[in-house]
């Protein structure tokens, strides 16, 4: 069984607020100094789901694909250390500046190139933009069924049994492979790699594919192919306006509050 994990490297979501800066002129996040980018946490969970199935089936193979800059090698190595077998990096200037659509398009092309894939695992969303589009986008491109926001995935012959998290409960679906599954944090903590695996991962070479390798035209990918335009990126000014409700008793204060809220047309 051949499983693919899509992994994205993102700015550290735990960057302290004081260190998070935006260049509003360029509509870009300024990389925080001394804070290295990380593997999106949901993608680590996607890797965990794939690895559990690999272990369950006994003879699976897991390939991790990332679209990003050269630095995304680190994200790939991390999944390799967890137990993935091979890594592919989609990296070229033409890929830069894309949106969910172009990313899904490029990743789907990579899955097609791999050929014999039984399932693609993505995080439910990347923890930077939180769009949650790429997984379903890949399914659309490939014409495969998809199940999103999974908390448990099992392989059953050629099918996958997926437990999904809904707003008010869980749902179990079974779908025939090949399929796309996006994984949520309810799946549980991703494994801690053994040192032996970390060292093996460090020695593995990651294959790099360019648009040419995937047969993609420059207009289909990156900024050129993007259908989403970022209008404005800004940090809401921090701070607040505090008004203390006067009153001798809590009841008086409550009345004053109610009046103030009505004046402000909130109630």
């Amino acid at each position: 069984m051949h499983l693919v994990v899509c992994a994205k490297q993102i700015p550290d979501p735990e960057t302290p607020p004081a260190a998070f800066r935006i260049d509003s002129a360029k509509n870009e996040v300024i990389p925080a100094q001394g804070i290295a980018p990380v593997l999106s946490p949901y993608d680590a969970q996607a890797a965990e789901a794939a690895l559990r199935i690999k272990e369950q089936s006994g003879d699976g193979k897991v390939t991790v694909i990332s679209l990003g800059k050269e630095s995304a090698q680190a994200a790939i190595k991390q999944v390799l250390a967890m137990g993935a077998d091979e890594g592919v990096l989609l990296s070229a200037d033409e890929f830069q500046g894309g949106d969910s659509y172009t990313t899904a398009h490029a990743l789907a092309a990579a899955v097609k190139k791999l050929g014999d894939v039984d399932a693609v695992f993505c995080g439910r969303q990347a923890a930077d933009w939180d769009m949650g589009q790429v997984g379903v986008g890949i399914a659309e491109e490939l014409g495969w069924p998809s199940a999103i926001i999974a908390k448990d995935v099992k392989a059953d012959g050629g099918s996958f049994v997926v437990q999904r998290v809904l707003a008010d409960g869980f749902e179990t679906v079974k779908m025939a492979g090949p399929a796309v599954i996006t994984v949520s944090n309810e799946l549980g903590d991703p494994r801690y790699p053994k040192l032996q695996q970390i060292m093996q991962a460090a020695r593995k070479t990651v294959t790099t594919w360019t648009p040419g390798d995937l047969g993609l035209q420059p207009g289909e990918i990156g900024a050129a192919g993007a259908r989403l335009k970022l209008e404005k990126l800004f940090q809401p000014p921090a701070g607040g306006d505090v008004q203390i409700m006067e009153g001798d008793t809590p009841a008086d204060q409550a009345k004053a509050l109610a009046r103030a809220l009505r004046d402000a047309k909130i109630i």
Partner: protein
Amino acid sequence: MVGGWWSPAVGLSGIGLVAALEVERTDAGREIFFNVQQPWAVYVFMATLVGLLVYGFGRHAGLWLLGKPTPGLRLHPRHRVRNAMRLGLGQEKLRRDPYAGVMHWCIFSSIVVLTFVTAQVALDADLSIHFLQGNYYLFFSFYGDLFGVIGLIGVGMALNRRYFDSYRRLRWDERLEDHLVLWGLALILLSGFAVEALRIGATELAEHESWARWSFASYGIAKLVEVFEFRDGQLLGAHTWAWWTHVVIAFGWLGLVVFTKLDHLFFAPANAYLLRTDAPGRLTTIENIEEREIFGVGQVQDFTWKQLFELDACVRCGRCTSVCPANLAGQPLSPMHLIQDLKAHLANVGPELQRVGHAGGDQRAVATVAMVGEVIKDETLWACRTCGACVQECPVMIEHVPTIVDMRRYLVMDEARVPATAQAALENMEVRGHPWRGTALTRDSWMEGLEDVPMFDGSQEYLYWVGCSGALVERNLPITRSVFKLLREAGASFGVLGQEETCNGDPARRLGNEYLYQILAQQLVETFKAKNVQRVITNCPHCFNTFKNEYPQFDGRFEVFHHTEFLARALGEGRLRPQHRVDSSVTYHDSCYLGRLNDVYDAPRQILEFLPGAAVQEMARSRSRGLCCGAGGGNMWQEEVGERRVNHVRAEEAVGTGAESVVSNCPFCIQMFEDGIPAIQPEEEGRMRAFDIAELLDQAVFGRNGSGAGGGESVR
């Protein structure tokens, strides 16, 4: 020292010697195998015993040799000999429990001296150099009896403790052999007196009563026996019986040395010789970690032979467990049982491992129970605080901490079985260079409101190392600021690294991820060297221990001070002048990594003495007996399993002093107290407060509102 122990014995013997020389030259003496037929049987016993010892120790040695070579044993031979004398023969650690100290000294010295007495008898008989004559014979009779009595006193104390005292630790793992050994010893001594008394009754009493008096105890018994007016024949018959009983029991007892805890007779001094000679707070480095296949200790043969050897030295006294913070809190760790379980496991799987080893087979494939996971449970290994209390107390110098950490290394690096919260801390160190997952602070946050914080550029004398906890945990920022202000006030030439600080790796090493530790440590050593750091002042005893004791392993040699050391000196030299009263009763908590593991007990107490109006109230467990706050050994980042939490136990002790505040020197201790005290004192009114000693000194120097010369932020 050894002398301290021996002085009473030497003194008493000396008096005897002088007295013996004072009497006229005499022809006193006796026939050795008096009244005993077939004395050759003794030599058969002797040969059997020697055979047994050789066989028994040979078997032990075979098991030890399953272990790996022990690095560093050739270093510091003089230090090692001194340890063997002080800690082995001198039994320094035993005295930490005074009752046991006296008891053990009585038994030990009696066995040594009486063995010497017996050896002289044998020499006199066999080599036909008859030196047991004249004045020396009288003296010999005297000290033989003296140490017999001393031995009986010791045995009496031991019997009392084993059977009548409410003393618990001896019963945590009591076995048949414990009773055998004790009663055997009692019988040897009593039968010894019987032999001597009967001999005296049958011979000397009638002929040379003045000689007999030298054997004062036996003489007394003989006089008692005399009352019954036995015939000589009866006395002689009884003597023969008593003699053989004595001999048989004595040899039997010596035979027990091979099979029981009595082997500590040899193993304890040997283990004192093998004891590490470097800092107790240092963990071993895994050399060439990249080239190894197994990183920690997962099976017995992964231990060093010294680690296997010391398992055999354990006497199940329970001292280690009785001081273990995890055990006190009802958590699943007892260092004594850990050592005993490993010992039993070694005996269990050792022979098969030896066989496979000799046959050149694969020892790892020998199917046995998993040592790490089954024999020693994961939660047992995680509960250890690496506080060193067990090592400190162990009378036979067993080092539990390296053994526990070696197995943790296996859990983390080989098996990747890590509690989730500890895993988060490790991953955070790897990814973000600090263990504080989710902190909203940056390494500059503490500088807000302080003017002109100097960056270290190599021109200053000291690097002030703030550390991850000092910079990234809200509660600790005031401590960091206080230290900063005090350093400045004291006129120190120093700078900080700010954003360039990264974790020095200590939590990773304690949690068992030696690989991550080495990466972080090597990086930081490089940074320090590049910046020309020579002297470091740290906020945190863990950073202190790491820089001071562990970085030399990576060729990083710096002069390292904990802030309490620096501040105590500045106070002593008058460079800091506490003028404001802090009126408060305080109790002082020794952090393990500053106190027990680095021997800094006095500097913080000196600072307290300088605080106007502060009354210090010590806790019952303090200084080298201080109890861990619960955070050590990476437990800051773990969920505790067990009846209680260690910080609740310690907070209770602190609250029990009645002091208004508990003062420490470590950001982790402060956090543990802040967290533990409310559990003991749910009412906010009058609740004990926890401070770093620098915060109090800050109040004393600058006043409560920080109005002194240093200015800046007020202390909360």
